[in-house]
Each structure stands twice: as C-alpha cells, then as structure tokens.
C-alpha cells in the first residue's frame, strides 16, 4: 500500500513539475507584456499578470515605424495560400495514386516516397539560386511556390483514399461520373479528418517558418511575423522588453486560441499522421 502511494506521489510530482516548467515561460510572457514598460526588467519576475498595461499592445499595433498588422497579414496570407495549394495538389495526386491505374504509377509513387528522405535544409543553397533565377527574391511567392505540394501530404491522403470502399466509385462510374467528379464529390468529402490534419500541419509549418523568410525576404514590408519579431527585438529589446513580449504574445495568440478549442483534434491529427500514416 505504501509503495503504491509512493509511486503515485513520484508520478504526480513529475507531471506537475514538468507542466509548470513547460508553461511558466508562456505565462511569464503574458505577465511581463502587461507590465509597465519601465518595469519590464524588474525582478522578481511575475508569472501571473499583476498589472494590466494594455497600452503595450496598442503601442505595438499602432507603432508608427513598424506595421505589425502588415506582418500579421503577410504571415496569414502565405500560410493560407500554402495550405490551400497543398490541400489541392496533394489530394489530387493522392487520388490518382490510390484510385487510378496507369503505367508508371508505382514508380512515380516511389519517387514521391523517397523525396521524403530529402530534408529541405539540405537543398537550401540550390533552391535559393533557383528562386533568384526565377526573379522571386523578396517576394512572397518565394515562400509559397516551393511549398505548393508535399510528399508527406500525398502519402497521408493516399492512405485515406485507399480506405474508401471501391463500391462507391463503381456506383459513381455506372451513374456516369467522370474522374474529376469522383474525386471532388465522392473521395474528398470522405477524407475530412486527413485533410484537416494536413491543413493544420501545413498552416503551422508555414506560420512558424523561419529559415525561408530569412533567406528570401529583404524588405520590411514583406517580412513575416517570426522574423519581424526577431529583427525588431534588436531595435526595441534593449529599452522596452514589454513591447517585444507583447508582440510575441500577439503572434502566439491565434495559435493558443485555436489549440484551446481544437486540442483533441490537433493531438489526434499528430497521432494519426505520426503512427498510422
């Protein structure tokens, strides 16, 4: 009995300590971003808001030199376009791999699969030269175009499409549906969970992308949120930490809200894509 009690205590202490370690920095950001800017360096630190200087947020949003809403919009635009493009191209290719037969299909699928082994960072130099030759430097297309498809997405959706009973497609064929119709009206609506998992990952990946914008974007007006914050901290960080942290908080907020609402969904998405493929 005592051993069980001891075991429980150890496990719960571990879980609670880890949860505190993982979350304390986040709540420190919130607390410090709401402090009076002149006190933002003061110790002891707050891990819970003690004062509420919402002006910090307004100052960041209304800052005359730095257009934060523009960075927000840039990030959002790139993430949305990338996500839409990937959902379309990946699901089309996946439908083709899973449901249609034609010469060379398995070979092409094998090429897609092996491309998963090539990390994007490994080809960063030639990709940069390519983007430069295409004249896309300092344009958002440099971030969108290379991300219009992903072998991972194709793989994920192919698995989903293969789970659909083929009788559905036969029935559609007999009713005279073409392949586009089969794809658009039968296959796509049935793989909602896989599509949304892919959408979540693509969106987050794009929203959090750092190396890409560092490589390709040159002018302030084109910056995305992550690099804008890092670049700005150099200018504002020394004098005014509260403003930098307010900016960080603004970049976290959409993700936080989304996660609080869709926690189960996100976690299940990772579990499904990570393990069952």
């Amino acid at each position, binding site marked *: 009995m005592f051993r069980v009690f001891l075991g429980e205590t150890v*496990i719960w202490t571990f879980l609670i300590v880890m949860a505190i370690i993982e979350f304390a920095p986040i709540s420190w950001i919130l607390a410090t971003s709401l402090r009076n800017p002149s006190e933002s360096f003061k110790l002891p630190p707050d891990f819970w808001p003690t004062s509420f200087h919402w002006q910090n947020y307004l100052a960041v949003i209304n800052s005359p030199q730095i257009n934060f809403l523009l960075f927000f919009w840039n990030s959002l635009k790139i993430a949305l376009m990338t996500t839409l493009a990937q959902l379309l191209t990946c699901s089309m*290719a996946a439908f083709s791999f899973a449901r249609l037969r034609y010469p060379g299909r398995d070979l092409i699928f094998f090429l897609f699969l092996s491309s998963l082994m090539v990390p994007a960072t490994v080809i960063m*130099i*030639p990709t940069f030269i390519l983007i430069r030759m295409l004249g896309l430097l300092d344009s958002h297309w440099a971030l969108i*175009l290379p991300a219009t498809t*992903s*072998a991972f997405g194709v793989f994920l959706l192919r698995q989903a499409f293969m789970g659909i009973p083929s009788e559905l497609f036969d029935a559609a064929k007999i009713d005279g549906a073409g392949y586009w119709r089969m794809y658009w009206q039968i296959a796509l609506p049935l793989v909602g969970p896989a599509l949304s998992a892919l959408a979540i990952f693509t969106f987050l990946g794009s929203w959090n992308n750092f190396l890409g914008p560092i490589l390709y974007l040159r002018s302030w007006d084109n910056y995305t949120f992550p690099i804008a*914050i890092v670049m700005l901290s150099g200018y504002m960080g020394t004098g005014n930490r509260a403003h930098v942290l307010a900016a960080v908080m603004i970049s976290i907020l959409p993700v936080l809200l989304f996660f609080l609402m869709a926690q189960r969904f996100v976690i299940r998405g990772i*579990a499904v894509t990570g393990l069952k493929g």
Partner: protein
Amino acid sequence: MRQSIGLSGIWRECKFSKRGMKNLATTADHRYDASVAKKKHTISKWSTNRTQEIVAGYLFIAPAFISLFIFLVVPILASFVLVFMRYDVLSPPSWNGFENLSQLSRDGRLQQVYWNTFRFVVFATFFNNLLGLLLAMGVNRAMPSIIKYLLRTALFFPVLTTTASLALVWNFLLTQDRGVVNYLLQQVGLPSVPWLSSSSWAMVSVVMFDVWRACGFLMVIYLAGLQAIPEVLYEAAAIDGAGQLQRMRYITLPLISPTAFFAIIISIIGAAQVFDNVWVLTGGGPGDATRLIVLYVYEIGFKRFEMGYAAAVSLTLFAILVVLTLLQFRLSRRWVHYD
C-alpha cells in the same frame, strides 16, 4: 516537422509489407480488377475507358509532380553540379574542380561544427525521447478529463508556438545579470550561471531549450503508441500476478519499441536540422561553441557567398542523414518488436 512525421508512416509501411510497396498497390488493384470483371460485357467501351483513366491519372498527378520536380528534383541535381563550381551569386559560376570537396577535409571549423551538431543531436534526442515517453506514460493514466486537458495543454503548447519567438523569450530568461532563471537559482541559494556567455554552458542552454520546446511533441507520439497497446495484455499480466514494474518491462517497453524507433529517427533528423533555435538564442556563439551545421551552411552561403562550398557541406549532411537512417533501420531489427 511535417517532413519528419511522414517518415514514421513510411518506415512502418515498408516494414509491414516486406515485399515493398507492391503489396499496397495490389490491394487497390485487386479491388479494381474485381470491378472491371463485373463489367466484362461492356468490353467494347473498355479501351476508351482505359485511355481516359490513364490520361486522368497523369493529369491528377501533374500539379504535385511539377512542383516537386521544380523545387526538389532540380535543386538536388543542381547541388551535385554546384559542388564543382565557384559561385558567389553576383558573378557567373566558374568551374572549380574538386576544390570544394578537398576544402571539406581542411576546414577545421567544419569539424568543430560537426562535433557541436553531434553532441546536440545526441543529447536533444536522448532527453526529448526520455521525457516524451515518461510524460506519455504519466498522461496516459486514468485521471479526471479536465486535469488531462490542462496537463496536455501545458505540455504541448510550446510545440505549436513559433520557435523563433520562444527562443527570443528564452534569451531574455537566460540572461546572466537580470535573467529570470538566474534570479530563481539565487532564490534557492544556487550560484548564477553564465547560460549564454560561457562556451560550455551555451550548448547546455541550446539543448535545454530544444528539449523544453519539443518534448511535448514526442509525448504525443508516444501517447498514440501507448494507446495502441491492448488493455487485455495488462489485465492478463495483472491476473498472473505481475507488478507495475514487471508490466512495464515485459509489456509496455517491448510493445512501444516500434514507436520509440520512429520517434528516435524523427528526433535525430529533426535535431540535425535545427536552425532558428541557435540563430536566435546564441547566434552560434560564443565563438563557434553552438554553431550547428545548418547555421554554418547558411553562413558559408550567405555571409561568405561561397555557394559551391556551402552545397558541398550540405551534401555531407545529406549523406550522414541517409546513412544514419539506414543504419538505424537495420539495427532496429534487433530490438524492435512488431506485433
């Protein structure tokens, strides 16, 4: 992240069907054949249908294929050409022979950078997976759903947030003089630590940050693995009188080993490519103490403008990752149990 997630599925797929992908393809084909057989009487229409299907197949693949070809195949091929070039972006490239490749062996900094990357990958992978597994086991226990929700939110949240922003925050937290972490250490009577300014502590900080940020992701992966273990096994073991530790040793660990295998590969491949972490937290310093390989490639390419040499260094990373993955895959047969 995206890329690494896919791998686990692929490995599993390749592993399950020893005969490779043929197996998978045939399941679809069998169904197809059955449906074709049913309609044998419409054989006159069959050939036009067949042509239509072939054309449709290629058309459906076209967008993804073109994108993948331009932005993946072309760069890969180009990097094998680039290795033999001298190219500073501004003036046209010129033939450089094997100069870039021989420079690899003479570059003392490259050795330092690889040594850093090696240590970073080993420690980050170890702690991420250890904590990920322990957390998953903890969270997987029976508990009120509100507590489960709060725990998972707290543990998983850093995974979703921009690494660059978080690294910036940790930079504030770890400052030596007025940093929060040192303040807390002093409160409990410990000396303050030069987290980012000492070359031995900087690597600790970089690993610490990575584990803080990523162990929640590993937790979710392990959680899925744990939940796939049938409850019956534990019940049977309990009836046979196996204690908690025995159940862990003889049921959980063997059955979680495939998951662990994928998780470790994911972690290694991910850790070897870490960039924004060190860029923001330490800038690779002090000196070269935390310069990791991708940051080094970036600097060779975009600060020194030696594109050819940068491509050569990237290729070494590429080769190492491929070898590591294949090696891991081979070794895994000894200790991974597939049910």
